[in-house]
């Protein structure tokens, strides 16, 4: 991406919004800000940003709800800012479609690294394609089709599928996937992988509850198989 990525920051606290805007701008991002979820959704439609940084605790509709509404129409990456890293918050956030999360008080550098990692997931790298049953992954167009129909995947889901499809039949551990897809260090939260696999299965599997494509390897992680 040659042009400067544009971000939408939705955060209700003035001090945090101002500070993060300052910090992210200095890191070289174009930042638009909104103080409420409603304003954020309006800005999303007007400005079409590349990524949303979303606070969970918002007046009016909360971050989870904003996340769900965005996902109905768009597949752009969302990074949650959670004030409490209560595990339930994280889980609900990942279920409502967030790609990654950072816990307050967040360091600007960490947030920047996450943003760049998420944005990198949409970059194409090779120009071949692979077929797994009815699912065709076109790496040059960065599209996935199932039975000829385009699947709407977020960049994270797409990247996860790409990484798995690069090593068909080989099990990848959650920690490996965290490094490959999320570019997290050794302490990555394995629930990110689990949540993303669930979302991906819901889109590519015929019956998500009994997957034939993305298989769980007990005690190790996940692998992509060609269905018989």
């Amino acid at each position, binding site marked *: 991406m040659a042009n400067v990525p544009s971000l939408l920051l939705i955060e209700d606290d003035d001090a*945090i919004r101002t500070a993060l805007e300052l910090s992210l701008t200095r890191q070289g991002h174009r930042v638009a800000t909104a103080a409420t979820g409603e304003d954020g959704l309006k800005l999303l439609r007007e400005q079409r940003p590349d990524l949303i940084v979303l606070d969970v605790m918002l007046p009016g509709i909360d971050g989870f709800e904003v996340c769900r509404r965005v996902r109905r129409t768009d597949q752009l990456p969302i990074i949650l800012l959670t004030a409490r890293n209560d595990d339930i918050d994280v889980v609900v956030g990942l*279920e409502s479609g967030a790609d990654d999360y950072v816990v307050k*008080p967040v360091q600007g550098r960490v947030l920047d690294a996450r943003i760049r990692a998420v944005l990198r997931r949409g970059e194409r790298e090779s120009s071949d394609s692979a077929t797994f049953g009815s699912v065709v992954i076109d790496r040059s167009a960065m599209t996935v089709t199932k039975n000829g129909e385009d699947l709407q995947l977020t960049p994270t889901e797409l990247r996860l599928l790409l990484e798995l499809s690069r090593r068909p039949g080989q099990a990848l551990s959650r920690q490996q996937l965290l490094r490959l897809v999320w570019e997290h*260090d*050794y*302490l990555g939260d394995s629930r990110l992988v*689990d949540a993303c696999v669930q979302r991906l299965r819901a889109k590519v599997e015929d019956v998500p509850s009994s997957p034939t494509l993305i298989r769980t390897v007990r005690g190790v992680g996940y692998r992509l198989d060609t269905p018989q």
Partner: protein
Amino acid sequence: MTEVARVTQKSARQQGAGNIEGAEHTSGAPGAEGGGEVSSRASGSPDTVGAEASEEGQGGLRGWSVGRRRSVWSRIRLTSLRLRLVVVFGLVALTAAVSASGIAYWLNREAVLTRAQDAVLRDFQQEMRNRASALPAHPTQDQLQRTAGQMANSSQRFSVLLVAEDSGGRTVTGNSDLGTFTLDDVPSSLRTAVNRRQPGSSGEKPTYHLYWQRIVEDGRPYLVGGARVVDGGPTGYMLKSLEPEAKDLNSLAWSLGIATALALVGAALLAQAAATTVLKPVHRLGIAARRLGEGKLDTRLRVSGTDELAELSRTFNRTAEALEKKVADMSSREEASRRFVADMSHELRTPLTAITAVTEVLEEELDAETGSVDPMIEPAVRLVVSETRRLNDLVENLMEVTRFDAGTARLVLDHVDLADQITACIDARAWLDAVELDAERGLMANLDPRRLDVILANLIGNALKHGGSPVRVAVRTDGEDLLIQVRDHGPGIPEEVLPHVFDRFYKASASRPRSEGSGLGLSIAMENAHIHGGGITAANSPEGGAVFTLRLPRDASSLVEDGGDRADGGPGGDGEAADAGEGGER
């Protein structure tokens, strides 16, 4: 001859005197005046008293021995309310039964003996008056013998012995049944009493009294009586067996004994029943008290009746209620203070997020080579940056602690290579030069990598801070457990500090600078070990230096299944379900 002493001291006079008076009329002898004390009653009463005294003595002995035994039993833990009740009931019953039967026995004995004795003595007196006084002053042996036979032939069937002096001055005796009743059978004390001449009252002629005594010969009770005919007449003695009366009294004693035994048995049964009625509520009370002690503060007793036990139950209920209220108060207060800490650290977080983001901008400005910051201001900026980072750590630790306190901490398990994890932990903090790792690659464990990192970072960081390098980290397996040992080469931990190293905000000494850390690190490490079902121990190595040993189960998945899944039914939970679902497929 045991009764002799008794009789000699209490010479019978009342009955005897009366009878003699009669005899004196017929025999012409001056009647004896002045009735003395009754011998029979007197002879009986000391016996009874003695018996009672000995009974009392026995009872006292029993009481003493019971007391003694009780102290022994209490030492060997045999005493119980039931036993005590039985013993007390038994004692009461025994005392009552024994004294009642004793009194009944003695009253009966006296009545029976007195009646028999009176009849015999009256007969004997009659015979003496009729026959013996008719004898000449110096009778022959034959005369005496014949008269004795006639006298013995009365309705009372007693043996008679007559003694007199014949004309030659020799002593002659007449015997009703030859050889069985001789003068030797008569106690000498009785003989003396009979032969003693009584001074006649108010100057009248001296007279003799009728005396009697009970003796036991060859185990058989007898009544012996004797009188002398006034003015040199013969002396007569009679012997009457009291065996029929003794038999009656024996059977009476047996019945009374059996009645006493029955009373004892009845008392024991009653005591059992009483103990049961008392002990059942006591037992219930005991159970309730135990439940209360186990922390079930809502334990209450059903109160029925108005007796002391019901009152006790009511008191118990009131106490339990008060206790429950107090505990509820305390826990709500504790809950409030815990929530205060949680809320406070949460509130701190918001401004801290803004400050952190801005201080980074400042820091970058410092690091930029342009030197755009005034050199005078630079130390101030660095201080703000470093203290903000410390504040961040503190708040993060506080949040971690409140999560443990609130019980919202969850394990997020993953299969990891232990050596890789430890290396990464050391590497991420730039400790590679100061830490020696002794661990084999390929040792896999199912645990929460983030929590393991927190534990290791705290243990190793602590070792580096207090012990100095090199810090040695060794990984071993012990059955199903992992042992990770962190050893430093410092001075070790003072003995008095050792039990407190995992306490929150515990500082080894007040003079220690506050910049050592948040004071929460080791307690958080401990909590993180606990949530895995493991633990940490601190000790001093014999070769010097402190040793922290972390013990974790190799597979913590059983903990996750028990207490809320890793993601509370979220994606992680689904992943686990999928895991289980596909387990059989492979």
